[in-house]
């Protein structure tokens, strides 16, 4: 069972929910896929026991073999290669823009001269560890690196389907989020009852419907703001899985790196109940 936690809007409490749900369950594998700024480890405090380089393949051109035909540039949908043909006896040149490269390999596959080979480029690291019976894995994208999906995919390769897998997704609704939530059996969308929360929730719902991933909503700070998120969920037939009221004590615990279930152990039962409901729902959906 893979459950991802996403939000649309940032700062709604994704990591809080993911971490506390994980701590309430047994036999969990936790993947922090918010690789641009992973922070679940601050709360889970796992012991990191292994590290793996994360690389993508970027093209390297052997200009001795290159005929400056421009095929590589033509097949690169990310515009990461520019071929400048030579003229007046001047040699041509091939410019590579590694920060635009997605590592798809089309350039080397299609090069008629066999002039392109691919070389590893480090984009970040994957750290593996654990805490009690929980396995913990996260990716850290190198500073200045623009593309997180390849690293997210590499983190997700560690998914162990025999465990309860919790994926902490990045915020937003673009490629990194889609990469993180893809393949989940269920997605929890964390939102807040504000116009921003509702706007970004609406976008996230569209994404999940397109991906055909069953989902439900958790409303964080549910007793402040307005009632429009509730109205929206009611109208759209989206189930509200949990409501967490605003509390200074929660904020204080969070800022000390403490977890909710440690400070408020009664919540464990609530998280477990929610997990039961999610499992039942996802099972039913998968049989449809």
């Amino acid at each position, binding site marked *: 069972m893979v459950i991802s936690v996403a939000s649309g809007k940032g700062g709604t409490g994704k990591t809080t929910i993911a971490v506390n749900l994980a701590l309430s369950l047994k036999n969990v594998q936790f993947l922090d896929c918010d690789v641009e700024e992973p922070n679940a480890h601050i709360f889970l405090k796992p012991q990191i026991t292994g590290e793996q380089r994360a690389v993508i393949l970027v093209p390297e051109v052997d200009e001795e073999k290159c005929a400056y035909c421009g095929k590589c*540039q033509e097949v690169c949908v990310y*515009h990461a290669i520019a071929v*400048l043909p030579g*003229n007046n006896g001047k040699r041509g040149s091939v410019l590579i*823009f590694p920060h*635009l490269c997605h590592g798809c390999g089309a350039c080397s596959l299609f090069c008629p001269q066999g002039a392109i080979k691919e070389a590893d480029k480090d984009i970040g690291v994957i750290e593996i560890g654990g805490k009690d019976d929980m396995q913990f894995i996260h990716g850290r994208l190198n500073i200045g690196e623009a593309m997180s999906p390849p690293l997210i995919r590499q983190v997700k390769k560690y998914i162990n389907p025999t465990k309860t897998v919790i994926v902490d997704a990045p915020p937003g609704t673009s490629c990194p989020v889609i990469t993180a939530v893809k393949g989940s059996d269920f997605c929890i969308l964390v939102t807040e009852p504000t116009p921003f929360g509702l706007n970004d929730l609406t976008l996230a719902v569209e994404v999940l419907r397109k991906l055909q991933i069953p989902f439900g909503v958790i409303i964080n700070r549910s007793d402040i703001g307005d009632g429009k998120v509730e109205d929206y969920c009611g109208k759209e037939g989206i189930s509200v899985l949990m409501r967490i009221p605003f509390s200074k004590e929660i904020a204080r615990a969070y800022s000390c790196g403490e977890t909710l279930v440690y400070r408020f152990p009664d919540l464990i039962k609530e998280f477990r109940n929610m997990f039961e409901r999610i499992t039942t729902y996802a099972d039913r959906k998968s049989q449809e």
Partner: protein
Amino acid sequence: MKICVTSEGKTLDSKVDPRFGRCRNFIFFDTDTGNFEAQENANAQFQGGAGIQSGQLVVSRGVEAVLTGNVGPNAHQVLSAAGISIFAGISGTVKEAIEAYKKGEYKATDTPSVGSKFGMPGKSS
């Protein structure tokens, strides 16, 4: 000699487009004959790599100089690799820009004038 001016419209009275990679039109002007040709910039719609594609388009037209408002790092790299002189920081009409260029009033820039994604919708005015 052929030069390229980024332009909002398709005539010499149009305003110089402040973006290179995502400019609306390229005006290719022949300083020997005074003839010109306007070409719409299909690369303006690209999510990424617009500067690179526009740079290549301009290179393929065999121009020797580019007059524009701003040029980003990728386009700058392509244009300079092809040995094209880049004149940034230009405003006013295309005609004015060409006249000033002919009089030698501009100085070529050897660094990008703006960062990546400068010309994305919502980023420039």
